[in-house]
């Protein structure tokens, strides 16, 4: 419990039905559901992960991919420290959308945001490799150009899911050490307010001379 706890605000972006909520569900509950209902607005989930000697708490905003909720996204990625841009490896359109998201994040989000590009649903390729419509090389190229983390995952088979979050967790504290706690979002145990101490302090301060 004495481990320092770092909160990471993480946002998931991507076209509708690429598996954003499924990734989160796999990561948070290690579960998978077929035929999930589309997300409305943005869902909020948390998950604690121990990396080396400290604890990282992910505050995950799982945004809806449908176009009509697009206006909500800026509110959630604006002060996020990490973003998962998800596409479906069987749907080229979703990769185009992912490119747009990456571009928008670079323009609008905070400068030191960690972006991970995720090609989801690779389990489909196990049954039929011809289903692949987005080449791994193409995605890797984009990741390299834009300085993104890149994974191909499957929420169904849990492939690479935890790795994505661990990698992000590894990348963030380093940056925090450089930048300091600018946002005040990261609260370590040391920084927590000691209620007992302050109570004493006020008692002393208000001590009357008479």
């Amino acid at each position: 419990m004495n481990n320092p706890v770092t909160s990471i605000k993480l946002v998931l972006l991507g076209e509708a039905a690429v598996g954003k909520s499924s990734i989160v569900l796999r990561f948070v509950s290690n579960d998978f559901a077929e035929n999930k209902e589309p997300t409305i607005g943005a869902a909020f989930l948390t998950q604690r992960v121990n990396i080396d000697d400290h604890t990282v708490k992910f505050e995950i905003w799982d945004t809806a991919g449908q176009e009509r909720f697009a206006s909500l996204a800026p509110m959630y990625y604006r002060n996020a420290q990490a973003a998962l841009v998800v596409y479906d490896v069987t749907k080229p359109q979703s990769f185009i959308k992912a490119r747009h998201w990456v571009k928008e994040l670079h323009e609008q989000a905070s400068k030191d945001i960690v972006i991970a590009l995720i090609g989801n649903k690779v389990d489909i390729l196990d049954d039929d490799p011809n289903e692949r419509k987005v080449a791994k090389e193409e995605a890797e190229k984009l990741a390299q150009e834009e300085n993104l983390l890149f994974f191909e995952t499957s929420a169904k088979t849990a492939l690479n899911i935890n790795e994505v979050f661990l990698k992000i967790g590894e990348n963030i504290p380093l940056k925090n050490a450089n930048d300091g706690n600018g946002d005040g979002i990261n609260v370590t145990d040391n920084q927590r307010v000691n209620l007992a101490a302050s109570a004493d302090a006020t008692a002393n301060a208000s001590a009357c001379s008479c």
Partner: protein
Amino acid sequence: MTSIDNSETSSVSSVLELEDISCPICLKNFANLQSLNDHLDTDHGFDDSPRSESDSVTTITSITSPKIHLSPHRNVRSSHSRSNSADVNNKKQDKTKKLEIKKSHWEKFVKGKTCNYCRRRLSPSTGLINCNKCGKLFCRRHCTNIIKLNLEAQFDPKGKHSRWYNCCYDCFISRPGYNEFGESIDLTVTFTKLRNKKSEDFQLIKLQLENRLVGLLDGLLALFKRYRVNGNVITLIKFNIERNALEQRITPWKSDNGVNNCHICTRQFNILIRKHHCRLCGNIICDSIDTGCSNAVPIITLRKNASDLPFHEDVKPLMSSEIDVDVNIRLCSNCLKAIYIPRKFEEDMAMSTSPIMIRYHSLQNVSRVITYLLPLFQDLLQNEEVEKNNDTVPNATNLQELTRIRERLLKSFGTYNVITRQLMLLTPENESEKRIQNSIQIMSSRFINGKILPLKTLGSALSPSSSSATSGRSSPLSTPTGKSDGTTTTIEVTRLSDMMNGLTIKQVKQYREELMVLKEQSYLIHSMITESKKQRKFDEIKTLTRNLDELTKRSQEVEQLLGDQGFK
């Protein structure tokens, strides 16, 4: 009357038998206006004059005779059967009168001639008919219209010797006054003249009443000036005596004897229902408030409301002085109606239309133009898109037409907007005008919302077309001009949308959408917070609350942007 005139009348009535002139009251059909007129007088009691029958007939006939014709709604197709009967008439007429229509200009039949309409080779089997007007030759099927011509073969519906003749379609439609929906000749003036003749008696009675009114009011005012201005008891008695004498001198009062019922409501007089004399017609009536048979009306009011009558007595000094002219005279409702209702009507008719209504009428005109142009514009634009997709060179005239229509549309929208604004700036005179104003505003903003949105989307549809256009294209919509066109569209649209809080309709839609999503999300976060509270996850609550604050802030911003256009 001469014999010619008589036969004229008969021919007229035989023609008019084809039409239906029906009584506006009982819908009975009549052969001509004269019989309708007689019917109105005898059966519906419009004739209140005890004139001799023969006298009225002659006067009427002299007016009616050959001039009155109700023109039929002649259908080109159905006229065939009619033309036959008209022809028969004409032949009969021609035999007896020896008045022949000019035939010198008729086209002569030579072998090989064709019908001037269908170009069919003419032969006795197809029929060889000259149009009576232009004289050209037609086959039987294409000379079936009938037209009224004078002896010089000119169209003359009111000429003395005019008859119905066959003519070709061209002559039929080119005659003055023709329209697609049939022809009508306004006979209101003639009819009014006839009616006036018949209602002369009523006019005379009205004139008599008015003269009496003038005399009565003048006399009363003179008396009032003489006695009442510095009134004491003795002069008051004198005034009343002279007033009585004056009233009875001007209008002979009916004798009370033998009259037991009110002249108007026919109720029996008794202790409560007293007898009164109308000071204008002298009839005995009651003064019941329920029936309103008679009323004591202040003479000043009477004078004011009939100011066009030739009063002599000057009322101004009385009006300007503080003295209250409290003289009333009793008038029955019939007399009041006869004198004042027509005046009230005239006054109402002469009243200028409310400026709001004038603007509304022009607004309707503009909206008619817009509703007419918009589908045209859309069709043209669609054609244009199809052509573009087919990579064919766009038709320059089409493009010009397109630009022209769009300019007209934009102009119309501008005018519409200006009129609406002017209308809203007017201060309504009363409650109902205010209501009308409000409804017009709602209607017009709905209209603009509905109509300008397609125009805006069209505008955006135009810009890609212009940008993808080949540079060599010298159409008015190609890149350079197309762009400037686009900007004018946006300017116009923005100007129009000033009415909506400075937002374009598209923006309003966007903001509304966003607001809806925001509200939805706030609700979700709310439920998440309650859930987290239950599970005692306090750090989550903190994040969620912060997010909720952000959401509320943003919703407020959007709501402010939307202003009146938000959700109520």
